[in-house]
């Protein structure tokens, strides 16, 4: 079963795999092609078709032209919002998670197992259980409808994942290494800086990719806690479909969808290996 021959059974395997691969790529291909067709062209035929001439203007309109509600600035401000939420929250949650993971796995302190157990429960607790408390907390702190509010939420909630990822990675570091450093008089921060961090790049890449993808793609908090010009791009896409429901602009909408999906797709293309490692690390605890 495991040698490279070209028996009929192997041709069948390639055929099936290729067919499924085509089906998996088809939605992406349809949107890419549509993003290059004019709205009129799509209206005459279907969403599925080859562009007659390349309508690059869809991208310009999607980026900075179309109107949602009363503002006509395209998707650009919402992309900026998403970036201003995702980048700080990713960096903060990864950094804090690395320190916390190091503390619970190698430094050890009274109650470390307990607090670690509770923190990881956050992976399972549905967002719906936190919606009302966050609403009240954001309102009382004046962070409702601000990007800062979403950064705070994603940082605190992200800790459940980042701590888990880093802790599971650091557990494999021999304790003797830490013990020796402590005997030499190195403290908490020095050990982290000199020993842990230099060993960390692989897990930090996994964590950053995971956090970036999840925060960028998040929708529920974005749509609940922000309105209008403060919304992240996922919420803006829904608002756009609603805004153009009467006169659909599928070419422009397709371009907007591509732009919105591009950051995470690029990261996936560049760091796919680490992305998959994050997926399986989250699953096999």
């Amino acid at each position, binding site marked *: 079963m495991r040698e490279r021959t070209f028996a009929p059974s192997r041709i069948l395997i390639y055929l099936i795999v290729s067919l499924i*691969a085509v089906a998996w790529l088809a939605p992406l291909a349809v*949107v890419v092609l549509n993003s290059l067709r004019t709205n009129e062209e799509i209206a005459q035929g279907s969403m599925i078709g080859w562009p007659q001439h390349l309508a690059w203007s869809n991208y310009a309109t999607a980026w900075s032209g179309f109107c949602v509600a009363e503002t006509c600035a395209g998707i650009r401000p919402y992309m900026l919002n998403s970036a201003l939420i995702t980048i700080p929250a990713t960096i903060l949650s990864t950094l804090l998670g690395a320190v916390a993971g190091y503390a619970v796995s190698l430094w050890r302190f009274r109650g470390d197992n307990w607090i670690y157990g509770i923190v990881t429960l956050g992976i399972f607790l549905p967002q719906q259980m936190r919606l009302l408390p966050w609403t009240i907390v954001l309102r009382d702190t004046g962070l409702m409808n601000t990007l800062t509010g979403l950064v705070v939420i994603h940082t605190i909630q992200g800790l459940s994942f980042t701590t888990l990822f880093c802790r599971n990675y650091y557990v494999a570091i021999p304790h003797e290494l830490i013990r020796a450093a402590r005997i030499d008089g190195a403290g908490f921060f020095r050990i982290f800086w000199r020993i842990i961090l230099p060993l960390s790049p692989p897990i930090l890449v996994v964590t950053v990719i995971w956090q970036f993808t999840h925060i960028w793609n998040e929708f529920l908090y974005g749509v*609940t806690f922000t309105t209008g010009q403060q919304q992240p791009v996922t919420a803006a896409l829904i608002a756009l479909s609603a805004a153009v429901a009467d006169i659909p602009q599928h070419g422009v909408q397709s371009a907007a969808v591509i732009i919105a999906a591009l950051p995470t797709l690029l990261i996936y293309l560049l760091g796919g290996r680490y992305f998959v490692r994050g997926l399986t690390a989250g699953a096999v605890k």
Partner: protein
Amino acid sequence: MTIAVSTRPGRPAAFDWVRRLPEYLTIWVPLLLSAAHLIAFTLWTIWISFTPSTLVPVSGWVGLRNYSAVAASRNWQIALDNLLLFGSAFVLLSLVTGLVLAILLDQRIRGENVLRSIFLYPLAVSFVVTGTVWSWLLNPGLGIQKLVHDLGWTSFRFDWLIDRDMAIWTIVIAAIWQSSGFAMALFLAGLRSVDADLIKAAQIDGAGPVRMYRRVILPTLWPITITVIVIQLQFAISTFDLVRALTNGGPGIATQLPALVVYDLMFQRSLLGRGAAAAVLMLLILLAVLLPYAAWRYVQRRRAIHA
């Protein structure tokens, strides 16, 4: 295990404590923030579910009235029916798709890396994007049906998106497309870690490929299968974005799911008490899946230690 209290002679303990304050703060503040918000927010939502809160949270006690109101509502009943259908169909089909893909990719085929990337890329895209794109493809006047009509086969029908009875299957389709790759990745890792001696022994016994999979390889995958089922169920129970973008619960309320009911009660009808009750019910459904899983994992681990 013990906290590292410096016992160097000549240093008063109080001074030591102050010196190490930055360290304590760095360790405890993030962990406590995370743990405290999880516990406090859960209790807070549970508390709100027992109050008569509507537009704003108020104190008071209404017992289980919010729960009975939610449970009696048509919205919630349809959401539960849908969750049952969507959950089982999606989990089963994505499991089968993922397993088939993993087995096919495990045949030492050329271009495995490219193929794997293709099956996994939907996981990097947001559910809003997936839902929007599939809403176009499945829209009968716009997508696949329209294309087939334009090609001349005008009696072709594929209008599940606007069919009350079939609309929930559009969500199944999109969800399978989005997350079968996840099952594939886990199964593939499992297939790659099957004991080579086991395979060799079976080959010596003259087992063919089908027998090999049925008798030798697949039985080793069942712990992974359970993990995949639990994670996919967890996803199914909290599905929100995908439905919001694909059908928005429609046509009518035909594709309502619990997470949509929660959002609707909390932020569209301003019935905070009932919304909180629906959220707690969601948590209970989730626990019905996760607690047996946790117990199973515990038993597994105990066995591994004693073996």
